C-alpha cells in the first residue's frame, strides 16, 4: 500500500485451477419479460403470468406471507442487504390505524441503473409486489417515491397503476378478497440524499429531505409517524415471483446467505455494458466474460462492486463472489451491484475527486462531519489533481475521511469517505506522484475555472 503503485495487493484467493473465466449464466427472473413487445402493458404482463401471485397471496394469511419471505432469504436490493421478511416482521401488531409501504425508487447512487430500466420495462411487477406486500404487512396504502428526473419510468408506473385499477387489482375489495389498497406515485425533486430511507420519508412528507435520527426506526414510526416498511424497487418486484415459486425454488439461485437472482449493472470501459441478471455470487470475471471483456482490450484497473459509496476493488478481487457476505469479507459492500469498470487509462485520484464533488453537492447539510468534511475533501482533492498539492494534503485527506466515517448522521458521510480511504489503500502512490510532480496534473487550471 505504499509507493509501489501495484494494484494487486489485497491478495484474493485464486483457486489452484486458475480463475474461473467461464461466462456468467443468465437467470432471467425479474428481467424475463423485458424483451417482450410492450412489456410494460398489463396485457403482456398478464399473458406472462402476471397477477397470478396476487390471487394466490390474497388467499393466504398475511403472517404466512411474511414467513415465506423470511424463508426465501430475500435481502434488500437497495444496497444494505437487510433481510426483507425480517424487516416486515418488525412492524408492531395492527392497531386499526394506518400503516404504510414506501417504495424507494429514488435511484441515484453513481453507477446504479437497474431500478429505472425495471420500472420502464416491467412496472406491473412492482405494482403487484406492492399490493402483495401491503396485504402481508396490513397496509392499505403504498407510496412509490420515484426519482424526479426519471420521468419516463414515472409515466410507466403511473400508467400501470391506472391499468391495475381498471382491472380490479387495486382499489376496493381486490379480487373479491375484501382487501383494499391504493398506490401513490410520487416524484422527488433532485436530491440524492432522499435515497436514504428516513430522508425519503421526510421528503415524502413535504419537508427538506434530511435523515432522521434512529431509533425510532420506520417500522415503528415512519411515514406520518406510523409503522412503515421502506423497500427498494428490485426488492418489491421480487415478491410476486417468490410467492409464485416458493422459497425453495428461490433458493436454488444464489448463495446460502444471499439467495436469489440479482440484476448486475455493468458500466464503463466494458465491451457490452448493460443489465445482466445472474445468480447472486457470480463474479465480475464471469460477468465480464459474458459482456465481451474490457473494451478494446485495455485492462481493468479498478471497479466498484456496488456504486461509488462502496470501497473500490482492483483486478485482485475479480473472483470475489458478488454476494452480500463475500463482498463484505473481501473488504467492500455489494451495495446495488453497480459494477463501474475503469480501465488503466483512468487516474484514480481524478475519479475520487469527481466522486467527492458529487458527495459535496449532495450532502444535505444536517450534520457537521459530512457537511464540512465533504467540502474539505473535494477542495483538497482538487488541489492534488491539479498538481498544486503538498504531501501534507494526503494526511489531511486521510484525517478528514476518518473523521467523517462513522461520525455522520447517515450513510452518505461514510459513502463519501469510502472512495478516499479505499483509493489510498490500493493506489496511494498515484496521489503521491501527483504531489511530487512525477506525474503531470490530471486537470489544468483552465478546466478548474467554472468546474462544479
Amino acid at each position, binding site marked *: 500500500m505504499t509507493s509501489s503503485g501495484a494494484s494487486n495487493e489485497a491478495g484474493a484467493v485464486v483457486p489452484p485451477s486458475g480463475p474461473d473465466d467461464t461466462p456468467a449464466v443468465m437467470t432471467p427472473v425479474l428481467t424475463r419479460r423485458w424483451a417482450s413487445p410492450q412489456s410494460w402493458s398489463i396485457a403482456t404482463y398478464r399473458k406472462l403470468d402476471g397477477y397470478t401471485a396476487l390471487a394466490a397471496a390474497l388467499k393466504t394469511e398475511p403472517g404466512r406471507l411474511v414467513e415465506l419471505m423470511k424463508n426465501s432469504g430475500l435481502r434488500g436490493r437497495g444496497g444494505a442487504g437487510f433481510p426483507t421478511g425480517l424487516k416486515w416482521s418488525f412492524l408492531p401488531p395492527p392497531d386499526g390505524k394506518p400503516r404504510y409501504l414506501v417504495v424507494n425508487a429514488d435511484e441515484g447512487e453513481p453507477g446504479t441503473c437497474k431500478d429505472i430500466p425495471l420500472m420502464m420495462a416491467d412496472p406491473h411487477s412492482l405494482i403487484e409486489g406492492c399490493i402483495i406486500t401491503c396485504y402481508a404487512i396490513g397496509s392499505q396504502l403504498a407510496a412509490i417515491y420515484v426519482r*424526479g428526473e426519471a420521468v419516463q419510468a414515472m409515466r410507466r408506473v403511473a400508467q400501470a397503476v391506472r391499468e391495475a385499477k381498471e382491472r380490479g387489482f387495486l382499489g376496493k375489495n381486490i379480487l373479491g378478497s375484501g382487501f383494499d389498497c391504493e398506490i401513490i406515485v410520487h416524484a422527488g425533486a433532485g436530491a440524492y440524499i432522499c435515497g436514504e430511507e428516513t430522508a425519503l420519508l421526510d421528503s415524502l412528507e413535504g419537508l427538506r429531505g434530511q435523515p432522521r435520527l434512529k431509533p425510532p426506526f420506520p417500522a415503528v414510526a415512519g411515514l406520518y409517524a406510523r409503522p412503515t416498511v421502506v423497500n427498494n424497487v428490485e426488492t418489491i418486484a421480487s415478491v410476486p415471483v417468490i410467492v409464485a415459486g416458493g422459497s425453495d425454488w428461490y433458493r436454488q439461485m444464489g448463495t446460502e446467505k444471499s439467495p436469489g437472482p440479482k440484476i448486475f449493472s455493468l458500466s464503463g470501459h466494458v465491451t457490452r455494458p*448493460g443489465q445482466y441478471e445472474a445468480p447472486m455470487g457470480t463474479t465480475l470475471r464471469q460477468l465480464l466474460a459474458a459482456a465481451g471483456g474490457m473494451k478494446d482490450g485495455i485492462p481493468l484497473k479498478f471497479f466498484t462492486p456496488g456504486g461509488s459509496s462502496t470501497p473500490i476493488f482492483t483486478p485482485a478481487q475479480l473472483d470475489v463472489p458478488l454476494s452480500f457476505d463475500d463482498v463484505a469479507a473481501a473488504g467492500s459492500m455489494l451495495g446495488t451491484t453497480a459494477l463501474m469498470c475503469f480501465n488503466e487509462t483512468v487516474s484514480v485520484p481524478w475519479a475520487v475527486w469527481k466522486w467527492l464533488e458529487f458527495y459535496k453537492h449532495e450532502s444535505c447539510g444536517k450534520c457537521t462531519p459530512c457537511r464540512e468534511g465533504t467540502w474539505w475533501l473535494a477542495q483538497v482533492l482538487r488541489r492534488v489533481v491539479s498538481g498544486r498539492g503538498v504531501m501534507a494534503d494526503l494526511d489531511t485527506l486521510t484525517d478528514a475521511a476518518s473523521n467523517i466515517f462513522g461520525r455522520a448522521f447517515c450513510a452518505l458521510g461514510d459513502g463519501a469517505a469510502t472512495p478516499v480511504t479505499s483509493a489510498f489503500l490500493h493506489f496511494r502512490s498515484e496521489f503521491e506522484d501527483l504531489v511530487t510532480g512525477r506525474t503531470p496534473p490530471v486537470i489544468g487550471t483552465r478546466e478548474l475555472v467554472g468546474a462544479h
Partner: protein
Amino acid sequence: MSVDVPAGQSRADAESNIPVPNQRLGIPEFLYTGTVFDEVTRGQTEEIIAKYPQQRSALLPLLHLVQSVEGFVSADGIAFCADRLNLTIAEVEAVATFYTMYKREPCGQHLVSVCTNALCAVLGGDAILSRLSGHLGIGPDETAGEPGTEGSITLEHAECLAACDHGPVVTVNYEYYDNQTPESALELVTELQAGRKPHPTRGAPLTDFRTTEREIAGIFSDLADQVNAPTASEETLRGNEIADRLRQTAPSMPESYEMPPLPERK
C-alpha cells in the same frame, strides 16, 4: 411582502435601497413575476393535494407544478404553494432551495443536462459539457437565448442520471439521449436551437421543460400514448439477449409448494 415589486426584481431589490444585500450573503432570492395562477392550475393543485393522506406531502409536486407554469420557481409560486397548503413562505422556501430540480432563474425552452459524474465524465461527459458550453457561449446553469422562447436552452452539469450503462448520458427535459459524443450532443443542441425536437433514445417524444415539469407534478395528459415510446435499449436487454441466444433460464418453478405455517406464538 406588502411591497409592490416590479416584475423581474427580487424582494431585496424592492424593499431596500441597498443593492441586493442578501445576494452577497449567499441567501437565495426568489424573483417576483406578478403571475396569477389560473383556474386550471388551481384545479390541478386540488387534484394533487387530494392524493395524499396529509396535505403537506403535496408540496414537492406543487413546486413542480408552479415551475411548469412559469419555467422556474418564483416568489409568486412560493406564495401560491404556501397559501394552498397553509404553510409559511419560509417553510416553502426552505424546501424549494433544498432540491436541485427547482430552478430559481427562468429556464430555457429546454433544459439540457450533461452527466459529469466520474463514469460518464471519463467516457466523454466532460468533453460534451465543454463542447456545448463553447457552442452556446454559456457556462453551466446559464441560459442561451431568451428564456421561454423557442430554441432557448439552459445548460447544466448533472450528477449521476442512473443510466450508467448508456454513458455518456445527456438528458433534455429529463428524457434520455444515451451514448453521446461531443459531436452528437452538439448536433442535438443545434437541432433544439432550430426549434426541432429529435426523439430521445429512450422516452416519450420531446416536449419542453415546462410540459415535462407538469408531468413530474403528476398531471399527465395522453399517458397511454406516451408510455408507448420504446425504451428497451440494447444495453437494457443485454442479459436477455444472452439468455435467449444460449437458451439460459432460471430454474423452473414447481407446480405447487407448501406455504410455511405461522410462527408459534411465544
